[in-house]
């Protein structure tokens, strides 16, 4: 029983947490791809940037959380989302829009976004420093330990407050995205632009406004993912580097341009990571008595060592694309 609780904590809870972060990032990447037709490599840095906005605000108003009984970093989340959304729109206006106007090819756009990545990383390090930071410097991070009503279960299910907030927020964000894309005029226009931009233009859809809204949604989701991940773990300036690959893998695995695919892809990559670094030796230990004497139980039995976790998204990407070349959902349009 304890082994299963250990498995639940290490694989299910952690996988759902990191999967939620990937999903929110991948939704943004996939929306930008669907509407603006380029792979936005600076997406990871919008996440880091959002987290730094929230961190800066937390440092300025460390008591804000007490008013609501929630972590201060979480209270600052909406502000960080708004700020990052504005930065995203500004980045588009300054760097991507002029290129689009001159009809540059998608590879040129990708290169420009790599430039933006380098610029943002430099700025974040310049103002934020290079060391890892913790949101919980003034408050305590609540960790819930839930005992199961079984006699054999002495281990407890461990879940942190930031993880719960992450799950709740992701659920609300997914519902909100679904509502926006299917029920609102601009959401439908986003789908229309992604489906057929020429027809959208002759229908009188204001492509510029749709573009701005896309960046606002992508930017605020990126900020949310960055803040919620940093709350749970820690805030590092190189956060984006470790997130970018899994997020793109999630978006591609789900089917590029397909927001529901991005959500599924996020969790597929998240669980694949936690499953592959899980120490399966744990499940062998109860059988130690019945195993033959010559067999020595390994202390560590994981598919991939933790340090090589970053290879897992690559593997998932290759496997899924062999099985379904367009991703789990048929990609291309929203």
């Amino acid at each position, binding site marked *: 029983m304890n082994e299963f609780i250990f498995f639940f904590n290490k694989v299910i809870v952690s996988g759902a947490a990191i999967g939620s972060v990937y999903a929110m990032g991948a939704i943004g990447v996939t929306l930008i791809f669907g509407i603006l037709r380029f792979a936005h490599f600076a997406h990871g840095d919008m996440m880091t940037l959002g987290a730094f906005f929230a961190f800066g605000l937390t440092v300025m108003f460390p008591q804000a959380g007490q008013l609501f009984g929630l972590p201060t970093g979480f209270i600052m989340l909406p502000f960080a989302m708004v700020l990052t959304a504005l930065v995203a729109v500004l980045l588009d206006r300054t760097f991507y829009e002029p290129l689009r106007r001159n009809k540059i090819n998608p590879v040129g756009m990708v290169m420009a976004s790599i430039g933006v990545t380098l610029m943002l990383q430099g700025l974040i390090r310049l103002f934020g420093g290079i060391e890892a930071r913790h949101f919980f410097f003034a408050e305590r991070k609540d960790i819930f330990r839930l005992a199961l009503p079984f006699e054999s279960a002495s281990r407890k299910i461990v879940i942190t407050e930031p993880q719960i907030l992450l799950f709740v927020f992701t659920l609300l964000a997914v519902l909100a995205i679904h509502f926006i894309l299917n029920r609102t*005029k601009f959401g*439908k*226009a986003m*789908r*229309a632009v992604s*489906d*057929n931009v*020429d*027809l*959208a*233009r*002759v*229908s*009188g*859809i*204001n492509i510029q406004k749709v573009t701005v809204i896309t960046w606002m949604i992508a930017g605020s989701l990126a900020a949310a993912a960055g803040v919620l991940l940093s709350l749970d773990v820690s805030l590092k300036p190189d956060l984006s580097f470790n997130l970018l690959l899994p997020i793109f893998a999630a978006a591609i695995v789900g089917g590029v341009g397909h927001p529901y695919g991005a959500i599924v892809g996020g969790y597929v990559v998240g669980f694949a990571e936690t499953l592959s670094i899980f120490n399966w030796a744990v499940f062998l230990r109860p059988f130690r008595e019945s195993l033959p004497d010559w067999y020595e139980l390994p202390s560590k039995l994981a598919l991939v060592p933790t340090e090589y976790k970053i290879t897992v998204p690559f593997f998932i990407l290759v496997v899924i694309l062999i099985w379904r070349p367009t991703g789990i959902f048929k990609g291309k*349009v*929203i």
Partner: protein
Amino acid sequence: MNLIDVTQLVAGYGNNAPILHDVDLALAAGKIGVIAGPNGAGKSTLLKAIFGLLNIHSGDIKHNGKSIIHLRADQLVAEGLAFVPQEFNVFESLSVEENLEMGAFIRTDSISDSIDHVYEYFPPLKEKRKQAAGELSGGQRQMVAMGRALMSRPTLLLLDEPTAGLSPLFMEKIFERIIAVNQAGVTVLMVEQHARQALEIADQGFILVTGKNAYTDTGDALLNNDEVARSFLGGVS
């Protein structure tokens, strides 16, 4: 006064050599105009030029007496123009009703009346309104495309080969719907490959050859012109 007035238009794609040379076209409000002519005559090009999709080298296009050559597509829609392209003219992944809603994007008032109105023109669409437009037959797609264009309540409807690829039976139906739309007060300017059938319903016909005006007259006059009939309508009837 004419609703649409094209004068001495020279236009082409990008910076390439112009395709249209000194083309004139005038159509009074409430009429049906048909642009006909052999392949490569620049029929569709003329329609696209009116809708601001081409580079205009010289000449002018006036709608209600106002020059419209510098307007963006969304401004033209606000002006009262609507354009139905020949191909890729529906949002395939959107439902029929969502396609119609997209046609009304520039409007800020309630659009449910207009949607009902489109379903009156095109009854088959009503039962398919939740279905993705990409799943419909060619004729039904054309209905969605025309319905979408009507949602902005245009005064001038531009149709690029509305019957292309349709069976003769469906062609009849589409022409019948075009007449109904016109009788409701919408001026229609269309390009048609089926020149004879189209000129039969046209008030005004424009025959282009190699990017220039060849014949311009009423639909009946063009049908009764032996030279036109021999050259462009597949013989004298």
